[in-house]
């Protein structure tokens, strides 16, 4: 039984179907990447897992329990925590306060909290230096570390990350992904959504490629990295069609020039 099992979920925004029957699985201690272009449905997937969006059909099971309709704050308590896109840290609170909120559900177990906080500070020494500073004044990379640190505080068994490399320098992006990889090695499952395909595939165990709300490819990360189709899916996946269609178009245009095409 996998730790996370998503089965054929459909999610709508108004009339727009953002996820059209998506299924994925994540095992304990595994790092899984979800790749895809903007608007493919990556963020919606993570939001649905976290209970911020509701699937109209299909099911989400975590640790063998159905969480399709569970409230977002309860899902965190079960051990699934998300690092949202754009970090979404609490900018008007200090670094230490942000971390304290990560431990909100354990707020009566100060001893344990202190230990977890020390682990976070060990992982991200920069955060320890800035603990009294307002989070809004941190640099982009530090904010990302805080967002991850805050999620670590909730004691997750599955941590999902939405575009952790967004807006970071390649160097920093790589560093963040490697840290995340280490979580998986320590037994925390990781589901990471990335646009930066190459880097994500370099550290993940497995990967899915998402296109317009559906999984179009899946497999071991190393296989996918070598796969030509991944490049295509990442690049939009329509180069082939373009070439074919363009060829046909040119044939046609010779005979029947389009009325709107000409200038």
């Amino acid at each position, binding site marked *: 039984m996998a730790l996370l099992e998503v089965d054929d979920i459909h999610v709508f925004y108004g009339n727009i179907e953002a996820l059209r029957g998506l299924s994925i699985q994540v095992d304990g201690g595994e790092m899984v990447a979800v790749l895809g272009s*903007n608007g493919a449905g990556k963020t919606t997937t993570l939001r649905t897992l976290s209970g911020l969006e509701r699937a109209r059909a299909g099911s989400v099971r975590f640790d063998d329990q159905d969480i399709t309709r569970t409230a977002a704050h309860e899902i965190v308590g079960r051990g699934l925590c998300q690092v949202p896109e754009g970090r979404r840290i609490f900018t008007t609170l200090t670094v230490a306060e942000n971390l304290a909120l990560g431990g909100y559900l354990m707020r009566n177990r100060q001893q344990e909290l202190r230990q977890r906080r020390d682990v976070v500070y060990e992982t991200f020494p920069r955060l320890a230096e800035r603990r009294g500073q307002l989070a809004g004044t941190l640099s982009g*990379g530090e904010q990302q570390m805080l967002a991850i640190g805050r999620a670590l505080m909730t004691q997750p068994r599955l941590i999902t990350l939405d575009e952790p490399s967004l807006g970071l320098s390649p160097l920093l992006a790589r560093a963040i992904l490697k840290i995340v990889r280490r979580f998986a090695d320590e037994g925390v499952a990781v589901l990471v959504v990335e*646009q930066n395909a190459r880097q994500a595939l370099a550290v993940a165990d497995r990967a899915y490629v998402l296109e317009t709300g559906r999984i179009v490819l899946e497999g071991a990360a190393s296989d996918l990295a070598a796969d030509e189709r991944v490049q295509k899916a990442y690049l939009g996946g329509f180069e082939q069609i373009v070439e074919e269609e363009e060829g046909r178009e040119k044939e046609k245009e010779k005979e029947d020039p389009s009325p709107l095409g000409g*200038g």
Partner: protein
Amino acid sequence: MASSPAALKSVTAPISKVRERIGRLPWWLQLAVVVGLAMLVPLYNDDYVTSIGVSVLTFAMLGLGLNIVVGYAGLLDLGYAAFFAIGAYTTAIMTVKLGFNFWTTLLPAIAFAGMAGAILGYPTLRLRSDYLAIVTLGFGEIVRILFTNWDYVDGPNGVWNIPSPSLFGFDLVDQNSYYVIGVILVLIAIIFARNLSYSRLGRGWVAVREDEFAAEAVGVPTLNLKLLAYSMGGMWAGLAGAFFASRVSAINPSSFTFLLSSQILILIIIGGLGSLPGVILGAIVVVGLPELLRGLQNARFLIFAALLILIMLFRPGGLWPQVRARRAPFVGLEDEEEKQAAERPFKLQPSVAEGEAILRVQGLAQRFGGVKAVDDVSFDVRRGEILSMIGPNGAGKTTVFNCITGVQRPKAGRIEFDGRPLGRLKPHSIVRRGMARTFQGIRLFKLMAVFENVMIGASVRERNLPWQALLHSRGERRDERRALKEARYWLRFVGLEEEAGRLATELSYADQRRVEIARALASEPMLVLLDEPAAGMNPTEKLELMRMVRRIRDRGVTVVLIDHDMSLVMNVSDRVVVLDRGQVIAMGTPAEVQNNPRVIEAYLGRDDADEEAELAEATGGA
């Protein structure tokens, strides 16, 4: 597919159906029926009932005015009674103290209230809507206190013996004649309000309400329109005030309290924001309900408040919400020849020659809170080319767009468009100069019809004046027809003519993006900036988009494109600019850029050996 929305629909469907049926009749017929029904009231010949009718009419007039401010333009106003007071006092002072005839006081009452609107509006233009609540509330209180302390009008006692109007020698004293006058005034007010609603102004206001930022960026002069909304809203209240003063014959400041302001606000919101039938319904509810409950004596306002809350809970959109969707928006519009389309009245001719730089960006820099988003970026866009800007997320592409379109003020740098510097022009002025854009996240005006969204673009260089919209004058009608034709033309261009009458939100992701493109093109730009137009499109849609981009260029419009989709970019562009961490790292033809090692590194990442050092460096460890 399980569906609480569907269940809800089965409940509200009958109401909506009735509304839709009625809505399909011509609007003047609807109005005639309403007036006919209204005229039954005096026939009942009960002074009590008629006087309630007069109150409903007064509130309807007020509601129609506040509807412009809150309903159309989305500006919260909690001090609207002040304008009503100004109108009433103008009439009272002019008739009682200065001996004018009632009819001659109408225009001054309207004018003073309108001016007061401008006075209130001007300093509050930059305030966000929640702050408007307290400022307008304060304004209302200040005006009331000024009247209370003004000895000329007898302070708290107010003005007495305001004469009733006379017409052709008859004194109009009884409730029935007031009622008839009221119906006529409301009728005029409704016609004017309707004219406004479906004019360039009305669309502009709704655009401001839906998304002020986007409205400005697609060519709506938002500050002017907000000021105008306050001023026009004030005028309606001025008229209602004049009518009220003469009807009650004695006025004092206690008639113009916050309670009145909140009643007017309540009536337009339970009626349905922006909806004219809603205003009438709301006025009937707000005036009529307490009267119906009169038997309950002291408890009547308690019950009224409870009912009010229930109405809001069960119909948060109001009793008769305005739906701007239209079944067949282009019916009756003669078909346009392609030739005619070629000679477009607002088509701008670039002054720079083909192939020369139509847009010149030099040394552009922008920072947010110490972080350099864009640092010394320089590039040219040549007239007639398709230029793409690519780079990793956060590289500063959208920031460059925002600086070019005037949405943000760059910290440094110079931007020249068509041979002239853009300086500190507001976004809407830049659109008028011939530069249009789309947005990364879709920013259509959601509760407007698709064709109206496009008409916003088509109207940016129109010059008709507010009074023309009010009277629906011939010039304004001509402009409207032109804008409608433009909308149809551009919706055809993007392949969405069939969807024109639907609400923008009802369209699919890809179609919404196309409407954005049509809206931008409708302003007849020389240069169009497309921010990630392919996001969320499937391969077929992307292919169509690619062709569309070429068709746009073939019409003589220069295109600047941001997109992540490399195959789209490489296929469609003449040249590519690559941004990374706020700087231009490469520029050239697609082939040149594709093989540039720096681009490969910035975009795809490179596998490096020295991992531990990198890690420690990044996280701040030793």
